[in-house]
């Protein structure tokens, strides 16, 4: 099968869905400009015109309400935010309005709204351009929450989100945009609410979100060399959550590490740890562990930023402690770094 990038996969999903369904339109700050949201909105303006691919004022709150109203009236809006942090301006429309829209109509009408938001990282994005916020959204009943990791899932899940009849928050980590992998041509759907086993293993389960899956795969290959077999579960959707795939994996391995691309405290990693500790009670060989961002605002300078984010090394070290293994020598290991491809500005 041909390989394309995560970004190209997103773009294919958008092009194909907008071709298929004239009620789909896309909008947001900078969506049609020449930068095309890092390329993910390529061709849309040219193919579908300015009525279906539109720029907006810097009015996230109102523009979210506009999407909600358009969705109530039968359109399928896709609202794009170049940083997740800007969603905080729209929290009222998301948590007080969109989330309860269907419930408030007695179930008879809903809002098929997709909100794409990019998780920023690197080159000193700092504390206002690097948030994740998927746990906050998942906490609010009535919002679906999707975090694709692979290019295939980027396409299949975005198509599913667009066709879904309820509000879907779709979080895209900026660094995933360059990931390349096989993606089917043409239309296909990855159903919302199904997790994916990214790697099979028997000694320990890593439940990872978004970019942390890339780090987890790397960590697993390092650990494999010393005979530790890691299973990686990518839940892909936080709402609805595929609890079974997580629980079954941990029942098999007896150990679980949650690696979330977010703060740990009151986050999704807590939910998974609580769920697993309950559902696998008596079957665990050790406590569920969690890793995520340092519980601080995100600093800009690189060495602090590196300390803020967990990576494959953090995962390896945590698992060594979980398995009571001595620390292996990682000095020869090349960990992921965008040092040479991802420079200023963004």
């Amino acid at each position: 099968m041909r390989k394309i990038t995560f970004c190209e996969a997103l773009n294919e999903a958008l092009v194909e869905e907008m071709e298929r369904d004239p009620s789909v339109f896309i909008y947001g700050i900078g969506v049609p400009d020449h930068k095309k949201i890092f390329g993910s909105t390529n061709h849309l303006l040219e193919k579908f015109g300015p009525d279906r691919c539109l720029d907006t004022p810097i009015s996230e709150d109102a523009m979210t309400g506009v999407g909600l109203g358009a969705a109530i009236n039968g359109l399928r809006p896709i609202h794009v935010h170049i940083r997740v942090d800007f969603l905080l301006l729209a929290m009222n429309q998301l948590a007080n309005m969109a989330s309860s829209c269907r419930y408030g109509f007695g179930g008879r009408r809903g809002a098929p709204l997709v909100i794409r938001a990019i998780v920023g990282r690197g080159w000193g994005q700092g504390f206002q351009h690097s948030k994740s916020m998927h746990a906050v959204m998942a906490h609010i009943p009535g919002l679906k929450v999707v975090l694709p990791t692979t290019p295939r899932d980027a396409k299949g899940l975005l198509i599913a989100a667009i066709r879904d009849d309820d509000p879907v928050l779709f979080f895209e980590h900026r660094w995933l945009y360059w990931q390349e992998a096989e993606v089917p041509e043409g239309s296909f759907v990855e159903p919302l609410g199904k997790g994916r086993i990214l790697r099979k293993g028997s000694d320990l389960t890593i439940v990872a979100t978004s970019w942390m899956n890339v780090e987890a795969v790397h960590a697993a290959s390092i650990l494999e060399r010393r005979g530790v077999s890691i299973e990686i579960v990518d839940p892909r959707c936080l709402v609805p959550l595929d609890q079974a795939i997580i629980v079954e994996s941990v029942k098999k391995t007896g150990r679980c590490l949650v690696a979330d691309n977010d703060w740990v405290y009151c986050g999704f990693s807590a939910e998974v740890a609580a769920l697993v500790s309950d559902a696998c009670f008596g079957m665990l060989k050790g406590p569920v562990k969690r890793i995520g961002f340092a519980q601080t605002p995100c600093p800009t300078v690189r060495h602090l930023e590196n300390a803020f984010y967990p990576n494959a090394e953090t995962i390896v070290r945590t698992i060594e402690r979980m398995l009571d293994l001595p620390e292996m020598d990682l000095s020869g290991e090349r960990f992921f770094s965008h040092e040479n491809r991802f420079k200023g500005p963004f």
Partner: protein
Amino acid sequence: MIDEAIDIYRKLVLIRRSEEAIRRWYGQDEMKTPMHMSMGEEAIPVGVCAALASTDQVMGTYRTHALYLAKTDDVDGFFAELYGRASSPLRGKCGSMHLSAPEHGMMGCSAIVASAVPVSTGLAFANRYQANGKLVAVFFGDGAVEGGVFWESLNFACLRQLPILLVCEDNGLAVHTLPETRHGYDSITQLVAGYRCDTWETDSTDAVVVRDLARRAIGRIREGKRPGFLRCRYYRYLEHVGINTDFDAGYRTEEGYREWLARDPVDLRRRLLLEQGVPEERLCRIEAVETERVRQAVEKAKAAEFCNQSALYEGVFAGA
């Protein structure tokens, strides 16, 4: 012409009788929902809705009894929901603050000040996208213009020249707070007039006058292809929320009330119809019919079942 004016009167009566029924029965504690009463403002939603086509759409606030009844005429659905019964399509989940009836173009109400304005803008965006000719009217209080999202929405509506009428129901109060404690400007209408839209103002309590002004505004929206803003003043008869008066609370006087009561929307319209030669018996008949409709609606609501407990979990997502 006169038939239209009579139907407007009928709506006013329906609304007033409905709220009188709420005042009468609320003390029984069966309507367990916070009531933000419309009394005093009836001419505005009745007038505007009379200028709208039935396929046009509206949204409102938590203070929405008059708007709901003006747009839907569905007094049974109204009381079914206030009583929280399974006979309401909203199944009791919404109560007084979140009434809606999309099949009548009543697209919902929000209890977060100003928050329906952008949603209505989105409804209008979709109507234009679908070229279905529908117009949207969104109703909000004078407090809503203090919310930034009002200005964001107005800017977008004017930028995209959307078919929307913004109706400011101005009672000069946000709960108990007067405009001088809230507004850093002199005229809201003048501020709005700085945008690419048309603005209109009235303090008439005659629903026919409001309707005629709304018609002009709507005409401009359709021809001029730009949004309209209509500011209507009125006096809130009762406390902010609840069924009582609160003239003793100190933030306003009963005199103001008396002045406005002298041109009460229901009484005024009745007087004018009589002056125009409509026989009083015709009006009495209407009053009797609407009173009876309200009585039966209350009765039906009280007699209706509650939905199953399992309904709690229904309707969060489609197909679930």
